[in-house]
């Protein structure tokens, strides 16, 4: 797979965006709004000129300020999906998709389940349909890199979950370097295998979702990347609970209702840590080796098996939590949330 390499600086209104990032598979940049996330995409797409630095795709230079090279957007093999999708309102769905490349329009309409809407105007589509049109249109150009700006932000909560699953499946099958920017850490975790946290134009940390939760470099990353995500297969139980068989084979329970492949979201502060197995009201009890212990301010993040727990520094000391030891973690079924995954 190709690699997009970018290393540039761009002055924004109140701070400078400075980013060095290589995108090989799927990378998500998360951060609060106004962190400069969209500007990253604009620089890569050629819609903004950086003051310094370069961007290239597998050695094909798109911008190199020092060498005075600048390819305009139309000469970059880039597929950019805008936050509000930016579909052309005066063109039909088919014309929108064919705008970037006529050859593949029909194939893409078919693949995205849009054939029956080919003649419709974007104004008459639902949020999910619009996103599919925007994706099909971006791919019709046969891009070398795919850029998604807040792909799920324009959708209502109800549609969002199902579109996220669709999008995840699609990205997995595309085999394109993809850069996603989002303010939602859960979306980032669901869609990307590498997540970077961008705050005021600087990349605070880059790593796998589990790394970020377990070993945040600073308190901001810690608070931002709050949640644990356990993957598993959900089944509905008769008493109204959902049981989830995790990939590790253990079973946990949730009061959320779901079926099939799900992610179990648990916040580290909802996880209770102990050195001995306690018989409490929490339905979920897991045991594991302590993989890491990281102090974040006055709290300590402890990675135990697949989960990260957050305890006070005093508790960590009292329980003698050190790397390599064994610990039990428990969390309540009511403290979990289930998100569908493909």
């Amino acid at each position, binding site marked *: 797979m190709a690699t997009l390499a970018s290393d540039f600086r761009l002055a924004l209104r109140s701070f400078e965006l400075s980013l060095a990032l290589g995108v090989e598979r799927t990378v998500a940049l998360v951060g609060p709004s106004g962190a400069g996330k969209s500007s990253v995409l604009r620089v890569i797409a*050629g819609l903004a000129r950086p003051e310094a630095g370069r961007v290239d795709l597998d050695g094909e230079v798109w911008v190199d300020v020092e060498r005075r090279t600048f390819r305009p*957007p*139309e000469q970059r093999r880039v597929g950019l999906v805008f936050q509000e999708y930016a579909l052309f*309102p005066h063109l039909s769905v088919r014309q929108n998709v064919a705008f970037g490349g006529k050859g593949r329009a029909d194939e893409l309409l078919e693949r995205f389940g849009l054939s029956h809407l080919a003649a419709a*105007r974007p*104004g008459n589509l639902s949020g999910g349909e619009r996103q599919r049109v925007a994706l099909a249109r971006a791919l019709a*150009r046969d891009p070398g890199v795919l850029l998604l700006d807040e792909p799920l932000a324009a959708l209502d909560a109800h549609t969002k979950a199902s579109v996220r699953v669709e999008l995840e499946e699609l990205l997995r099958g595309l085999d394109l370097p993809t850069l996603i920017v989002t303010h939602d850490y859960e979306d980032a975790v669901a869609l990307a295998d590498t997540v970077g946290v961008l705050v005021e134009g600087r990349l605070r940390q880059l790593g796998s979702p589990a790394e970020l939760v377990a070993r945040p470099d600073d308190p901001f990353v810690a608070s931002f990347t709050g949640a644990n995500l356990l993957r598993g297969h959900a089944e509905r139980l008769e008493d109204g609970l959902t049981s989830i068989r995790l990939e590790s084979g253990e079973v946990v329970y949730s009061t959320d209702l779901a079926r099939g492949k799900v992610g179990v979201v648990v916040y580290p502060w909802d996880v209770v840590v102990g050195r001995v197995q306690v018989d409490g009201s929490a339905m979920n009890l897991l045991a594991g080796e302590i993989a890491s212990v990281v102090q974040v301010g006055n709290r300590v993040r402890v990675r135990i098996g697949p989960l990260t727990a957050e305890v006070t520094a005093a508790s960590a000391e009292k329980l003698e939590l050190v790397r390599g030891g064994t610990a039990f973690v428990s969390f309540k079924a009511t403290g979990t949330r289930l998100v569908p995954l493909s």
Partner: protein
Amino acid sequence: MRRTLLATVSFGAAAVALAFLALPVVAIFTRVPPGRLVRLLSKGVVTDALIVSVKTTLIAEALILLFGTPLAYLLATRRFPGRAVLVTLVELPLVLPPAVAGIGLFAAFGRSGLFGSTLNAFGLQLPFTQTAVVLAIALVASPLFVRTAIAAFEAVDPDLVAASRTLGAGPARTFFRVALPLAGGGLAAGAALAFARALGEFGATIMFAGSLQGVTQTLPLAIYQEFSLDFDSALAMGALLVVVSVALLLSLKLTLSWQPSRRTSVSLFARSS
């Protein structure tokens, strides 16, 4: 008690205002029977003026669209120092007294004018020609188009323009396939307004082009001339211009209400419905 008084006063004021606006138009059609109005239109001075008016207005309109559209697009999409000055310059003819526009044109393109002496060297003389009519009405009518066109282009979502570029369309293709169609409603509105203004131009034309029947005498100039010679012919031409104006206004309103979903439709007039 107070409320009914207020309502009465409001209704009274509205009735006076409406009557004032309607009376001159009604009077044009009621003084002379309609059949006679139509017959008067075939009088030589009237047909001559009609031909001059149609010809010069269409040429001026074409020039305004041809030069005004790129100008409006640049002013709408580029940000540079001095832009506000340029926009003001474009808008100036709107507030400039037409007589001043006429004398200005004379000073610029007259025989000994700023640019006119150069033209003169090539044997070209503009004042009192049909070209002078075209220039006068183009100058006075252009801001109505350019101003509306700037607003229409500014209303095109910049994301759509950016999307077009990332989809492989260069600036020219982006202009013709995205910006122009999306601004179309606003451009048509501006064109109609400029057309109406051009058709009615009087002051600048009479200063710079004179009032020569069959050459530079447009309908408004002919009305002024016939006003003292044959009042009924003047009325007939007035009636004709009223009909054209009403038709323009109605088609404008229809065009604008016809595309309510277009985000770029510029609201110039209140909706009729």
